[in-house]
């Protein structure tokens, strides 16, 4: 046992590690574009120079399957799906009451999500929402983390028509995936709302009950009450329109929140790796791990909240009363 230890290794190992890290950092700074602009070209070999990254917003098509464009983001999504399904299958194939290490890690992740759902939406609804929320969470998180694996974005392939494209790309950095997730979230929110409340659910958006009643009052001669009621009814209709609008704005905000964060993270990593090559990007990788988790939690959590809101009975706003 060493007398002075840091992080479980001896003092000299730590010092050596820090020295190597520092040398890599300084060298990276010098040979990077920042260093070159400061010190001029030092005549370094070409393989040390990192090429300027070209971030592209639209995903590139890798190949066509029966005339259907398969982009690298779709392949990334497949990879994430494959990973999740195989991982889950291997773990749950032989479930034990007293779990092993891997099983308990997986179970505690799912159990955490499950109890989150139950805490927010209640016992019964939490059970119904859990698969949707968990799928969104798992997909967003693992897709983000998988695309952080070094080498994920650097596999290049040549397409049939001669372009060099990336084979893999984090699906969430292609706007189609966040949009797809947002649409799925939207569909499930409306589905559960309709399923739980039936016709009353639509009354939240088409809030014309008060307006019609006040027209009735005017016809029956109570003009003063009718006019006030009509004003309130108009406000209700307006609020209903806002509610309906907000459902669609949610899709947009869902989409662009995830897309923006993931794309920005990707570009941030590319830029840091380009400006100061090698070790400088490591803290940003850590940051992106956190961002992936947070975005997954936000997407899943907001979906959960919207689902919960959709199944809550709006007694005083319903069309029936």
């Amino acid at each position, binding site marked *: 046992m060493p007398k002075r230890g840091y992080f479980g290794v001896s003092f000299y190992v730590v010092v050596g590690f820090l020295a190597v890290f520092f040398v890599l950092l300084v060298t990276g700074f010098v040979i990077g574009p920042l260093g070159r602009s400061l010190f001029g070209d030092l005549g370094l070999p070409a393989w040390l120079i990192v090429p300027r990254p070209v971030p592209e*917003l*639209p*995903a590139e098509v890798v190949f066509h399957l029966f005339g*259907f*464009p*398969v*982009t690298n*983001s*779709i392949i990334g*999504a*497949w990879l994430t*799906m494959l990973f*999740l*399904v195989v991982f*889950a*299958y291997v773990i*749950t194939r032989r*479930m034990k*009451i007293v779990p092993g290490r891997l099983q308990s890690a*997986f*179970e505690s992740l*799912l*159990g955490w999500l*499950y109890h989150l759902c139950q805490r927010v939406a209640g016992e019964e609804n939490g*059970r119904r929402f*859990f*698969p*949707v929320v*968990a*799928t969104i969470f*798992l*997909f967003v998180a693992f897709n983000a983390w998988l695309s952080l694996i070094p080498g994920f974005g650097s596999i290049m392939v040549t397409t049939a028509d001669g372009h060099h494209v990336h084979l893999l790309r984090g*699906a969430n950095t*292609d*706007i*189609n*995936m966040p*949009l*797809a*997730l947002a*649409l*799925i979230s939207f569909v499930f929110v409306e589905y559960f709302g309709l399923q739980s409340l039936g016709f009353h659910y639509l009354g939240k958006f088409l809030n014309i009950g008060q307006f019609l009643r006040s027209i009735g009052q005017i016809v029956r001669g109570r003009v003063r009450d009718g006019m006030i009621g009509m004003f309130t009814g108009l406000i209700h209709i307006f609020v209903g329109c806002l509610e309906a609008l907000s459902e669609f704005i949610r899709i947009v905000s869902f989409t662009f929140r995830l897309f923006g964060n993931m794309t920005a993270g990707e570009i941030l990593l590319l830029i840091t790796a380009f400006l100061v090559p090698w070790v400088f990007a490591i803290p940003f990788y850590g940051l992106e791990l956190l961002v992936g988790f947070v975005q997954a939690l936000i997407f899943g959590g907001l979906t959960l909240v919207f689902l919960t809101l959709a199944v809550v009975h709006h007694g005083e706003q319903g069309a029936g009363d």
Partner: protein
Amino acid sequence: MGGLADLGINLPVLVAQIVNVAILLGLLYLVAYRPVMRMLDERSRRVKESMAQAESIKEQAAHAEEEVKKQLEAASREGQGKITRAVQTGEEVKQKAQEEARQATETLLTRARHEIQRERDEAIEEVRKEVADLTIMVAGKVIDRSLDKKAHRQLIDRVLEESTRRKKK
């Protein structure tokens, strides 16, 4: 649609991704959520069961403890009672013995007293007889004439009786 296409929105890809997520949802439901939920339910059921069991065992233990305490208390009470009774009996025995001893002493004393009285009476009688005989003898000597012994005797007895009666009065 130029702006949206620049962002990369592309209907076939969008549909593909929606399908992907739907497939993922279905597959994960089969291989992850259903078994895990079942496992969680099972585990919470077991935990609840074992908690209930522990509760009942605890209750039983408390019950048994109470029972033991009660029995101990009863035993102690019984023992106490026995001791008290024994002490009482001992006391009684002692008192009886004392009483008996006292009575025996009393009897003995009384008898002794009687004996003494009788002895004294006898002695007095003896002395009196002796005195009478002596008196007669002396008187005979004095008078020199033997009186009729029997008449004389009667005379002395009468005198003595008188004197005794007078003394008693």
